[in-house]
């Protein structure tokens, strides 16, 4: 999938695609093969955001971005961040098919709003993207949601969300490209 197809997603579609990507990630992609529920991701983000606020180890700009994502105050900026995350996932060979499927799914119109969990899932996936692991130690077969089998490694697919969010969240503003950070900046003027 080219950069253009991710770019062609509308704001709503980008957020839906993100939710679909999260939905499609197999349990084997997570630490202890335990896929977090959307509510767990949300709780985790809330907790770490709160800790970061009190511990002063997150830059104010990172916290402003997290807050904007949580409240939906900057839909355009959120969508842009979502597109960027989708592209990052798509660039990983292991996730390319899943990302394409998620984008196709998001393009189908439905009479349902963007799931409110999408903003939290975006933060969770942002943190994961931040922590992509490339070590290849042991091979493992996983089955994707459409039953396709492919060989990958356990390590590169195992994400400790807690750790990833903890490390990624305070450094969001450094991690995100300047053009996206500035979008959030504008909306908070």
């Amino acid at each position, binding site marked *: 999938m080219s950069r253009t197809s991710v770019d062609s997603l509308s704001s709503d579609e980008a957020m839906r695609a993100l939710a679909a990507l999260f939905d499609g990630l197999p349990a084997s992609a997570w630490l202890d093969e335990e896929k977090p529920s959307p509510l*767990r991701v949300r709780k985790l983000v809330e907790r770490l955001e709160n800790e970061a606020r009190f511990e002063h180890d997150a830059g104010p700009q990172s916290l402003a971005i997290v807050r904007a994502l949580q409240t939906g105050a900057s839909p355009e900026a959120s969508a842009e961040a979502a597109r960027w995350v989708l592209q990052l996932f798509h660039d990983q060979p292991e996730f390319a098919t899943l990302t394409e499927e*998620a984008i196709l799914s998001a393009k189908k119109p439905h009479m349902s709003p963007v799931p409110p969990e999408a903003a939290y899932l975006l933060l969770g996936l942002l943190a994961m993207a931040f922590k992509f692991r490339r070590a290849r130690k042991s091979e493992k077969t996983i089955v994707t949601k459409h039953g396709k089998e492919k060989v990958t490694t356990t390590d590169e697919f195992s994400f400790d969300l807690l750790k990833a969010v903890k490390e990624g969240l305070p450094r969001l503003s450094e991690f995100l490209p300047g053009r996206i950070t500035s979008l959030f900046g504008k909306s908070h003027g």
Partner: protein
Amino acid sequence: MAEPEADLLTSWQLFDGRFLELQGRFAESSAQSNLSEAYRIAAEMRDLTAAFAARWRGAILLPDVVHEIDERGLFVRQLLASVGAVAGHWPESRVLLEGLVAEFTDERRAMAALALGTGLANRAEYRAALPWLRIAADDAGDSIPTKVQALCQMANSYLNLEEFTQSAAAHEAAVALAREHGLGELAAQLSLRKLYFETLRDATGAARDRLRKEADELKRTPEIASSPRLRIEACQMLADYYGKIGESALARDEVNEALDVASGNDDLQLRWRTLQNYAQTEKNFDRAIRRAEEATTVARTIGSPEELAQSLQLAVSLRLDTEDVQQHARAEEEWSELSNIADSETLFTACLDRALQQARRGRIEASLASLEEAQSLVPQRSVEVLYARAAVLMRAGRDAEAATVASDALARIDPTDTRRRSLVQRTNLHRVLAQIEARRGNPELAIMHAESTRALTTPIDCEWADLQAWLNREDVAAVYIFVSENSAACLIAEPGRAPRMNPLALTVKQIAEVMPSRDSVDAEAWNRALVRGIAAIGGALAQALHEVCARNRVVYLFPESNLAGFPFSALSFPDGSGMVDLCALVFAPALRIAKEISKKKTSRGALLAASAGGETGVDFRSHSEEIAALPFWESVRHVPDASAFAFLEEAPAADVIHLACHGTLAGQTEEGMAASEVELAGYERLSAKEISRLTLQADLVFLNACRSGVFRTELYSETGGFWRAFLDAGAASLVATLGYVEPGAAQRLAVSFYKAWRAGEISKAEALRQAQAEAARTSPDPLTWASHLLIGCHR
């Protein structure tokens, strides 16, 4: 100094030194919750004091010395009484405390009364505890913590007696008192507990939402953040909450946080409670049993039989729940110890667990004996025992006895009681009775019980003969679907025929495996799961329903809540026909409710066509315009880009309400009526809860939005969401959707429905069937047409 006086001085110094040393050790052991050691030390202090008094009895002593010895004697009795109450010496402790209450006239009377009341409450003797706790609250004087604790314990006792008004009053008085006297930590703790207690009485889910939100916030307050005990309590409440909604990983997060806090603290009691809680909420057996075993070890160190019994009971329950014979053997060993030390409440729970396990293994007589034992232990919990007894008898095929027992249990519950526990018990008993009576060849009785499970909170007096007459008059059939752990059945009532039961080859587990997960946030993934569900369990359902659907033009279907999201219209039969070729399906909370609704006089002339959500890329405005332009309406009110306010304002005057917009079942609330939502202009959400407050006259509401026909409910058979909201508000019928629908297909179906309904003088049920059959001929994807369902009145 004369000789005896010198002896006295020496003896006093020795006594005093030893006494103070023991007092220090007592304080240390108490702080570590090492209760058996603390009790042993207190007993040594008692013996030391008694020996000193005996040695100098008859001697001429200074009044100050006499007074000091008496005071120390009293002090030691207090220590023994209070530690004894929690360290397995309750009978002795109780006698001591009663004596102290009678003897003291100051604040110490309040403290003794508090210990006595607490001891009784801890042994489930709530009624007996209350007078002592009242004395403690009244006589505490300036000792505010004692007064607050007494009020709190009273609230707890009233709660267990299910006297909620008194419980809430005692709790509020305690919180107010704590706040007034600057006891922030205590006030925060009480607020937490009050929230938790509210969740026990609330059947809507709203209190659980509040608990989650407020417990999270309270955890961050300085009072709780700085108090390990309170932080652990907050975590435990949240763990309990997450466990109940199936978020076991989140529950584990909370308990892990509590374990972290407890590990940095040498309070054994705190550690025990945390481990115990972990084992209770953890779904993974290996992790759970490991923590239960750790909790047992800590309980042994504490030396309190109550804690040890609770840990053993939990371990036994976990082991019995497995199929592993080695675990069963371990459970037997633990059971022997447990039965020697447990209080009646703990043993009651253990007996129930054991009885169910014995029944699962076919040991029916042993199971019934365990239930007898449970009943004798806590007679006031007879409904639970009778329910379990009915289930065991049913499993053994002793249906007549099971029916008598379940009916007896039902008769013991107040039918006007709408509290959560009572509703759950009544639903369960009616379900059991419906299944038993169906098996016994009493389908009329079975249907009346099935009806009761579905209309618990909407009591409408109705006899079977009334329902049968209505089915005959309307020429419609009704099918109730029951699915339990290991069996399923359809109860079928048709016009002009005796009701009967059809077996159904389905289990709860099979349904859970194929229906979409609540955690799924992707529309397409959800729909794909639903299609897989149709393929996996559709055959069994079609087989059970084929005959009744082939013989009747309209069939009311009453599936239990685990099948409420299943698209029955998509079923196809072995002869190649589809459900929509054979008959029209209608859904309703209960048949008696549909019958009641059918009495309403309705008009069909005034249309409200509303839409919202155009900013999201779907042209909803053209949808409502197209409906408004149909040539059937006497008057039309078209409201594109409808706000929630505009919709609520316009809806009461309309005869037909059509709303095209986005809809969802929100994942972030546990309150059933608040979870069902539509999104109106400006992304504003309107929930079923707000709709239910309206007064409507509409003959039909067509809610063309995703998932507007699914709902969240805690009972097996009761309905919720927009089903209840629109019908309770006064609408006669509702068309809503089960899955994620594609806007173009949903609009075509709506237009086709209106054309059939208004042009052909046919019922709404038949009109929807025709629209679906027409769509089915052109679309291979069942979710483009089978997702819509008619709810309420079929006409």
